[in-house]
């Protein structure tokens, strides 16, 4: 495989509702910042790919306007996935393997405040047998949480994840929700949808993120400490909740194995766990021990831009590698109900 690294990352501050700006206005400064930080001139970027979703904006072709933020003139090599930006990054990484282009811009944006997100996400379910019942995304996650608790876990584990994530977010200026509360205090809160309390659920966020990838020599040229992608893989599981073991994440485990997570010590992991208990499932699937620092950014419990939160995990993990805070980091992204689809990316500094 050709060596490819994350050489720049930028994100907007996640907010519940970006009142003034539309998607392009949120995205443009983020894209500009990522390009500027990368040191790769805008017009020299070889490939551009984005992740977004029409149903967040409630209009078809919502991704098209994203091009306005990029300066796609003269015309550019460009693609789009109706998935989280982490999968857009995967497409870019694959494209860079061809060898004819050396850099790629990846971006993602989501403005969930325009609609009722838990209801919108219902439309991700089987259109004939599930969606017509209108289960919302929180209730679906609560089903999974219940199954997980019955398998021998307790609510305190959930509260610990939430407390740690929200506390970590105090150090992240881009986070939306940050708080210093103990697990005991959190456990006194009422249920939102039993067994989930409000802090077990992600905030609803508006925002955007962008990453610049560079290959081989170019990465070394523009970055003092590139975050090399040493492994990246993604897997999907069957859709029906009844045919899956919701207490484990076999697709994360497989993607992690393929990406080589276990080949060496992991210093830090950014896991896209929108619901607190899912972090425990993911840690187990990836074989991350208690000594691995998880979600120093606060994770998806502190800011969860739909279609962008997975890409943000990669950007955050890469940032830890590039700033010298970690030698080896794991980033993870998820999509679909109950962790149906998962992507794992291993990032390393030069040895």
């Amino acid at each position: 495989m050709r060596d490819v690294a994350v050489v720049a990352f930028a994100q907007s501050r996640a907010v519940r509702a970006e009142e003034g700006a539309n998607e392009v206005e949120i995205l443009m400064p983020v894209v500009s910042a990522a390009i500027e930080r990368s040191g790769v001139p805008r017009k020299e970027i070889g490939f551009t790919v984005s992740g977004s979703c029409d149903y967040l904006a409630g209009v078809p072709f919502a991704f098209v306007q994203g091009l306005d933020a990029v300066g796609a003139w003269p015309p550019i090599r460009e693609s789009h996935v109706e998935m989280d930006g982490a999968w857009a990054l995967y497409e870019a990484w694959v494209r860079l393997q061809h060898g004819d282009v050396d850099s790629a811009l990846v971006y993602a944006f989501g403005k969930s405040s325009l609609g009722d997100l838990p209801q919108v996400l219902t439309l991700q379910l089987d259109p004939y047998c599930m969606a017509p019942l209108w289960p919302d995304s929180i209730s679906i996650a609560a089903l999974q949480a219940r199954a997980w608790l019955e398998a021998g876990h307790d609510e305190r584990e959930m509260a610990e994840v939430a407390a740690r994530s929200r506390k970590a977010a105090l150090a992240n200026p881009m986070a939306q929700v940050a708080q210093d509360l103990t697990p005991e205090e959190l456990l006194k809160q009422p249920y939102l949808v039993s067994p989930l309390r409000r802090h077990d659920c992600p905030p609803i966020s508006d925002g955007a993120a962008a990453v610049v990838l560079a290959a081989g020599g170019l990465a070394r040229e523009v970055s003092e400490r590139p975050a090399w992608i040493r492994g990246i893989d993604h897997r999907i599981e069957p859709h029906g909740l009844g045919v899956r073991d919701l207490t484990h994440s076999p697709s994360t485990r497989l993607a992690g194995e393929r990406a080589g997570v276990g080949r060496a010590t992991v210093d830090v992991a950014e896991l896209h766990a929108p619901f607190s208990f899912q972090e425990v499932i993911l840690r187990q699937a990836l074989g991350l021990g208690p000594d691995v620092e998880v979600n120093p950014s606060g994770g998806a419990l502190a800011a969860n831009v739909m279609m962008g939160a997975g890409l943000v995990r990669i950007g955050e993990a890469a940032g830890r590698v590039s700033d010298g805070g970690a030698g080896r980091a794991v980033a993870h992204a998820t999509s679909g109900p109950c962790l149906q689809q998962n992507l794992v990316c291993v990032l390393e500094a030069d040895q």
Partner: protein
Amino acid sequence: MSGQLCAVVGVGQTKYSSTRGDVSIAGLCREAAGRALEDAGMTWRDIDAVVIGKAPDMFEGVMMPELYLADALGAAGKPMLRVHTAGSVGGSTALVAASLVQGGIHQRVLTVAFEKQSESDAMWALSRPMPFAPPTLAGAGGYFAPLIRSYIRRSGAPDHIGIMVGVKDRQNALRNPYAHLQIEDISFEKVAESPMLWDPIRYLETCPSSDGACAMVLVDEPTAGRSPDPAWIVGTAMRSEPTMFAGRDAVNPRAGRDCAADLYAQAGITDPRGQIDCAEIYVPFSWYEPMWMENLGFAAEGEGWKMTDSGATAFDGDLPVNPSGGVLSSNPIGASGMIRFAEAALQVRGKAGEHQVAGAGQALGHAYGGGSQFFAMWIVRAQKP
């Protein structure tokens, strides 16, 4: 071409029709995918990854339907990607799938594109009055008709060109059992007398609204070597430009010209009209045939209509365009681009049946989308490069 060699060894299509009420969305995709696997002599187990594409999710009312389709497409435990680049998506999806092989990631990739417009109302999805937009939207035709008028003004093309394409593609469709429209008595008069929907576009100069899916199996060089009839991909390109900016030429967009130039350079093509044996191009309104002939470099600017007029693009012409009947005969939007790519592959594999162009050794597959701003193309060849 960039990266490693890749070839098409399996193609599958559904029957296209206005309502495929006999199958679910999953059933529709599986019908195409199953046929592609059969054509490739493979089973679901042989596939390493699945790449799926479709146009807006609102056409069916299912958000990110790849999640629900994972089971039906045998993707469980495998990587699955979902592409969406507006009308060009079927082409872009094939290119992303090819990219996985060209990048050396996988050996055997299944790619599927579909649309099941009958499950919702595509015209509604495209024309909903938006609070901040002027109240004039009227589907895709409302957007493209003024551009066609501009083309006619710029080129001085006579009115009958659009009619000729409308007749020719429907005649070609009679040779293709999968085609949606099978108009036995198609004639110049019939098209000319059909109502003006979006003047200057007549009813029979527009594409139908179809349900359907198309699938392909793309493989690496060693795997293709075991196939009796691979279509070798010798060039792939995509280009995009913004929808609206001052001075944009939306009639003959630079993104399309750049895309074609990149494509031909990869394939070693210096004289497209002489070196390409047939083309499957995305023509949703008949006038787009001459417009794309110019954009793709088959004719000089302002001269594309003369190719149609002289019969050069007819089934027995020197550059048969859309021998399958094209988008004008079948239009499951999200799949329409992939059908162009797949039909090009069928031609060079010698497997196009009744609409086989004799001796087709090199073919172009083309798709475009949005406001004529997203382009995806490939060149396939019978002979291994």
